[in-house]
């Protein structure tokens, strides 16, 4: 498969990178590049297509790497705080008041 000379390639270790994080990262950097993700047995290999001429290859790689780290953090925070977030929404929308009450008159 021939590669466009302007593209760059970067790999992420499958065992330490969540695909979700990678996909969200690719989405978030779409102003600078589009990303093609291929999975092998050990890696996710990403081909980076710059949006316009003159974008530095190193900069693009840094950008997507940093974004993957941040999206990974976001997934982690979301997982950890998911239950209490649901609780808060449930409390906010509950029909009765928030204080402990024995009765539920409205």
């Amino acid at each position, binding site marked *: 498969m021939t590669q466009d000379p302007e593209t760059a390639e970067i790999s992420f270790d499958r065992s330490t990178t969540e695909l979700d994080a990678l996909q969200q990262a690719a*989405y978030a*950097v779409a102003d600078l590049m589009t990303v093609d993700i291929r999975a092998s047995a050990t890696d996710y290999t990403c081909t980076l297509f710059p949006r316009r001429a003159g974008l530095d290859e190193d900069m693009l790689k840094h950008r997507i790497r940093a974004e993957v780290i941040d999206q990974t953090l976001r997934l982690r925070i979301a997982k950890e705080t998911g239950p*209490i977030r649901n*609780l*808060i929404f449930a409390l906010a929308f509950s029909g009765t008041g928030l204080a402990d009450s024995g009765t539920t008159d409205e």
Partner: protein
Amino acid sequence: MNVRLLRDATAVPPSGWQLLPMRFHRFDSDSVLLTNLVGEHLFVSPDQFLAVIDGTCNDQELLARLRARHLIQRPGDRLPAELLAVKLRTRLRHLPDSTGLHIFVVTLRCEHTCRYCQVSRQSSARSEFDMSQETARRALALAFQSPSPHLKFEFQGGEPLLNFSLLKWIVREAKRINRDHGKDLAFVIATNLALLDDEILRFCEEEDVHISTSLDGPADLHNRNRRRPGQNSWQKTVAGIRQVQDRLGPGRVSALMTTTEASLDRARDIIDTYVELGLRNVFLRPISPYGFALRLRGGAGYDVERWLRFYETGLDYIIDLNRGGLPTVESYAAIIARKMFSNQDPGYVDLTSPAGIGLGALVYNYDGDIYASDEGRMLAEMQDHTFRLGNVQTSSYEEILLNEKLLQPLAESFTLSAPMCHSCAFEPYCGADPVFHHATAGDFVGHKATSAFCRRNMGIFKALLRRARDDDFARDLFWRWGQR
């Protein structure tokens, strides 16, 4: 000394805290912005941020501040979830009160020919572009089916004063109908003021009607875009503003600017014009992507960075005016400040989630067609009827509000589920704009990485937060703006 319970017994133990729902943004090279579920924020360093997530932070003072801002809690705490729920509920409590703003396009006729006008230009004489009384009557009947305890009726056009007789009728009829409803009513006329006369002033005085007008800036800027016979739009506008202030009081007239490329180097001049006229509120508006503005430039987007420089110049000038003792408000910043520094909803339909289309505003066009927003109506002028919800002759209230044409964009653009928006630290300050994204990107969500709406708003949020962080005067000023 009588201290039995020591400080570390009550503090958060090492590695012993739980995260509360939080979102983050890499603000600049040495700070990370954290926001909690209801938009309360805190700045930390990148290292501190990781230490908090990893459980390795031992800065007790930072941990106490995170606790106070409901970003972390001690296991077993019950209060943070309760308080966050109360605050969330408060922020959302306006939702059942749809629809607050009802826009009546009483005519398309206008004697101006403004270059950026998004409404079809029609000369003053053709009254087939006027709303009929029957249409108005049906529109009022629909409006009063809104659950909202406050209804604001805004008259637009064209130039609404060209159909003043109908306007008068609508105001009186609305008040008559309201005797059975007891709602709080407000009336605004969005007019260029060129046709203001004694009769109109008297009517506004008697019926407590407010005036909103267009003031793009100093005369050369204003007249360049706002063309009318005699080329004296600015003079007429200024004279009209003064008349309304003298006759009805200074609080009864407000002005909005329309921003064009030519405005972008003139922030201070524009603000000075407002200040000279005693107008305390300045709304530094974005360049609109709709209608003629789009056509004139061949649909190219404008340079958001350049607009943000314009905005920040204006914002800083307004802050300095306040520092010098002249209370002036940048209206968009005040709206955002309300979301940043309080749990009250500012009621601004163009920056809210769920989007303000239909739920916040309904537009009744001169021909009885009903649109989900003002911009939705402008799209119709370009033959795009995506946001037309029905017609006053044929549609019931339920058919309008439960129309798939309304529900689909509301659902798809909802920020808590939209890609990138749902995890954005600024989400509590922001809103959904399905009309903008439909017009510029072809779907209701757009792609936030390339969206001018996102870039502009994020630029504004950062501009405000940076100033609040680095300048105590600005911080206190924004806090005050947010409380009103």
